[in-house]
């Protein structure tokens, strides 16, 4: 079973995505999706990152819900700043020292930071493990760093145990 599905999570994701794209639960389409789910992990083998073990899928769902909620809330906050007086904004480059030590998980964290409005991640340095990001309005960078570490990094570390 393990040899047939070297990446079970990837296979399941491909199958579900194919079903969503096909938009119809016809037997032929689902069969084609199953074939793709079997074949694609083998074809893409050289590109896999060494993903760490998924320890707590449950925490992943809470984190996903939190990110969606934060996107909605932060959108409102950024909208106010965009309409308001632009000169009073305090844009800043902020460095977040990371506790996690995994390129894959760091990528997820950087993506979350970019998706939540108001912050765009620029670079993750893999030697000193610092995430550089640009904030649209950060009068208090220390608070922003604390928030990112508590809200996103801590759960990610729990999920992947790294």
């Amino acid at each position: 079973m393990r040899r047939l599905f070297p990446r079970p999570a990837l296979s399941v994701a491909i199958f579900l995505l194919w079903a969503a794209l096909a938009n119809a639960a016809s037997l032929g389409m689902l069969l084609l999706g199953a074939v793709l789910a079997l074949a694609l992990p083998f074809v893409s083998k050289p590109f896999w990152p060494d993903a760490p073990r998924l320890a707590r899928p449950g925490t992943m769902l809470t984190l996903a819900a939190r990110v969606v909620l934060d996107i909605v809330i932060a959108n409102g906050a950024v909208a106010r700043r965009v309409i308001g007086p632009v000169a009073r904004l305090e844009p800043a480059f902020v460095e977040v020292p990371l506790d996690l030590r995994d390129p894959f998980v760091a990528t997820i964290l950087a993506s979350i930071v970019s998706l939540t409005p108001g912050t765009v991640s620029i670079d993750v340095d893999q030697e000193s493990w610092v995430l550089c990001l640009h904030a649209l309005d950060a009068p208090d960078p220390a608070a922003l760093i604390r928030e990112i570490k508590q809200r996103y990094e801590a759960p990610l570390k729990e999920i992947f145990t790294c």
Partner: protein
Amino acid sequence: MNVIIEFAVSVLILLGAVFALLGSIGLARLPDFFTRLHGPTKATTLGVGAMVLASAIYFTATQPGVSLHEIAVMVFLFITAPVTAHLLAKAALHRRGDRQPSPHPSPASGRGGNGDGRLFRSGNDCPLSLRERVGERDEVTQRQEEVK
């Protein structure tokens, strides 16, 4: 079509349009490249997200079966949007570094690191090359302010 569904779809389309508009306003109003980068990321996440959700609800309600294309659209957008922003930001740092050779010592080696106290306030180790480039950016903005 049910009144409640019609209402929900209308609200979602309007919400998406408003946030796409706000993203564009941000792109037009904000002063420099890095702040402008924030506008489009916002428009893709909530703006497109709301419209895509409206589409999913509408076609699920009006046509037989469930419409799930839209979820795939959202997944791909959420995966690609940060990558685009990341590449744009890196490209901008590179170009600034190439075009504006710094006449002053870089913040990392001179000036005590923080210029106007706004860049890299946390003072940890950002990669040196990035820090130098960002330092130059700081000087460019300062020069622009002087011109004004």
